[in-house]
């Protein structure tokens, strides 16, 4: 492949992942030297239409308009990358799926002018289109982003492995926050790749990278309730925060109905 044509798109999201894709100083210029960014509204004044070789999609789909946009993206891009947890699993916007209200009620709760609002339950983009690669995290991990770019340039699959955050945490020899500080850490069921960023700073893992491979959310939920004394509602909220749409994390929620 010559210099691949790359586009960055934004659906419902905070733009933090796009920012991370830019915030790769010392090597930003080197990256710009190997890819041709044709479309990146946040970063460039001049943007060009498709087709593109690689499309990075940030954000979840929350409206019919975004769904149309997404379908067009799939048509225009040979490779589609879900960039960030919103695009992968629905992310923070997806918590509305679990609040027990109808779509209309939710709209009324958030907006005053309702005549032009059409929203949908929130899912990651692979609910609607085929996705080739996933960059998890809220926001994405820069190193993983670079590995993916290099792999795409080489034409290989990066074969990311989603081990637990605990593994990275212990490699850093952190004292376990759950066992020794009784904090409700999601690290054991959450996919690594962040370098145990939060737990290394003394903050429990929030589960932002979604489920680790073959994780056992039910078993962790039991630790939260039995050993840490969390209410079932609190446990449910923990598993619904970023990736409640995934079958793995919904097992952690159990049969709890009202959040």
């Amino acid at each position, binding site marked *: 492949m010559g210099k691949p044509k790359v586009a960055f798109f934004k659906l419902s999201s905070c733009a933090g992942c796009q920012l991370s894709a830019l915030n790769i100083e010392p090597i930003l210029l080197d990256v710009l030297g190997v890819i041709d960014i044709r479309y990146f509204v946040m970063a460039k004044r001049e943007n060009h239409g498709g087709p593109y070789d690689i499309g990075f999609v940030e954000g979840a789909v929350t409206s019919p308009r975004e769904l149309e946009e997404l379908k067009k993206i799939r048509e225009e891009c040979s490779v589609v990358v879900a960039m960030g947890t919103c695009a992968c699993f629905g992310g923070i916007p997806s918590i509305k799926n679990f609040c027990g209200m109808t779509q209309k009620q939710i709209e009324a709760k958030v907006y005053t002018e309702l005549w032009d609002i059409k929203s949908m339950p929130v899912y990651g983009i692979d609910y609607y289109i085929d996705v080739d690669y996933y960059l998890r995290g809220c926001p994405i991990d820069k190193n993983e982003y670079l590995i993916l770019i290099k792999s795409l340039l080489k034409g290989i699959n990066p074969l990311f492995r989603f*081990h*637990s955050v605990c593994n990275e945490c212990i490699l850093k020899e952190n*004292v376990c926050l759950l066992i020794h500080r009784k904090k409700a850490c999601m690290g054991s069921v959450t996919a690594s790749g962040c370098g145990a960023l939060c737990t290394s700073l003394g903050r429990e893992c929030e589960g932002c990278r979604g489920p680790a*491979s073959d994780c056992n959310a039910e078993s962790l939920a039991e630790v939260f309730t039995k050993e840490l004394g969390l209410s079932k509602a609190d446990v449910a909220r923990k598993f619904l925060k970023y990736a409640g749409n995934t079958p793995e994390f919904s097992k952690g929620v159990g049969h709890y109905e009202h959040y």
Partner: protein
Amino acid sequence: MEKYILPKSELAEYVNKLKKEYEIFGPVSKDNKYVFQSIEDPQDLRLEYDTTILPPKKYFHSPEQIMMEFSGIADSVQEKEPVGKRLLIGVHPCDVNAILSLDKVFLNTYSDPYYKELRENTIIIANNCTQPCKDGFCASFKTGPGIENGFDLALTDIGPKYVITVGSEKGKELAKGFDLADEKETALEKKTINDCLNNITRWIDDVDNIANFLHANFEHEVWMETKEECLACGACTTACPTCYCFAVKDMVELCLEKGQRTRVWDSCMFYEFSRVALDHVFMADRTSRIKQRIYHKLAYTKQQFDVLGCVGCGRCVGICLKNIDPVKIISRIREVPCVPQDPCIYNPQQKSVVDNHNPWLTEKAVIKAVKKITPDVNTYTFKFTSPNMKDYSFENGTYNMISIFGVGESPISISSSEEEKDTFDHTVRVVGNVTSALGKLHVGDIVGIRGPYGHGWPMEEMKGKNVLIIAGGIGLAPLRGVIKSIERNRDQYGRLEILYGSKIPESMLFTDEYGDWQKMPDTQLLLTVDCVGDNDDWKENIGVVTKLCDKITCSTENTIVLACGPDVMMKYVVAKMLKLGFKPNQVFVSLERRMGCGMKKCGNCHLGPVFVCQDGPVFRYSDIMNLPGGVF
């Protein structure tokens, strides 16, 4: 052993003196727990520590070890960061014993230069335990609380002073200038360690027979219970001082040409540990991974390396959010054990390979010919570029590790016969990264190859006997050499029957060679496909390969059966052979597993106690049929 005295008040001074010559590592406190760290100020040392988060293993088997620097797809040089002289102080007996365990894995055969260099440049000052730690059960294995060997010096805290035991010549040097311990002091030392031993409450009883015991309890309900609990987080193996498994990966720079081949700690608790191409995972079920860990620690390692797999340090227990505990698991089984069985413990044939060069380095091999076999399979003919490789030889059925630096390394069987000396063939199906990269190469391109590895087909034993070959799909590749060898020495073998099945007619391998095979006297070739698609010319059989078995004419005596194909196929083939009356010791199978090293080091290829990479890939079925959990 000589014993000396070091007053505690003089420890700092002594450490400072050692610092002039060595980089010192020892236990320091971190948030009320302990870790091994580089020691700047001897006051930071906490020799009274109970256990550390990671074991000192990290100083020998690095969590992330750069193995080589590469540029282009075939050029690499060994990464050589000089290792300075190092000294570990305060290593507990369990951890010293764990290092002795790792020595067997890394130094016994295919001696690992990275481990070796770190190991040889490191002095160990052990630290006998005077109080049991919370989770440890070292006494079960006699790996604590006192140390017997494996150290240069050993300290025992007897109040105001340490008794120092000399354990090596180097240690003798380091103890120069100390006063000899008197009888009272050595008696007190003995008593301190003995008291500690008597206070240990956690035990696994009867460890000498634990392998038999565990084998009999492979289907015990405790494993399903543990599966429900276990989070598959891998913390237990990462913290274990004897776990050696690792994954090899290539990291490239943005220029895509240069990069590093690195190995990082891996764990059998991870889902991806046993993943191979096309997302097939051999240990997908958490129960099988839990069993792999516990059995490996308590039984398999002993079978593999004649060394302890668990030293009872207790780290896996303390670090587990669910408190999954080998001691509790064993006592839980002992409460209600399964019916004892005839012990049938697998003991692999040892094939010791000792040579002095770095076994990770590849030799350059140039592609002499490429032949398209099917739309996604090519046969490559290779020749090593270096004259040093002119003596390269291999057995039919063994394999090489083929490297495309920057993409990865894959085990690929040699598909030419062992008599052909100048060049060798590999027949490769495109399924993923390495195989696709290979698929793009042309005559004249150069790749990196190391090998051959493992045990091949029993060519000697086959002489004078009938040979029955059963293959499926790409599984014919490692058998092509056998057929060619028989063709070459036709009179040395009895009847030859080849049963080969593939998905569709278009995916059959080596079709242009069938004519020659069929021309051989006393030879039968039977072909079958799963479905024909729109191929109207297909005149042979349709259906799975086991269907062909009814057409076998070889007698059940005096015949050797060779089988290679996907696991599902082999399962049925082996069952069918046994049903037809062939004995398990007449049947040979070639197995596939994930392989990261080929040298009994990375653990990726584990099949229970077996390393498929070295004990196989070709096995006599009777050797492995009684493995706990079976083969297929």
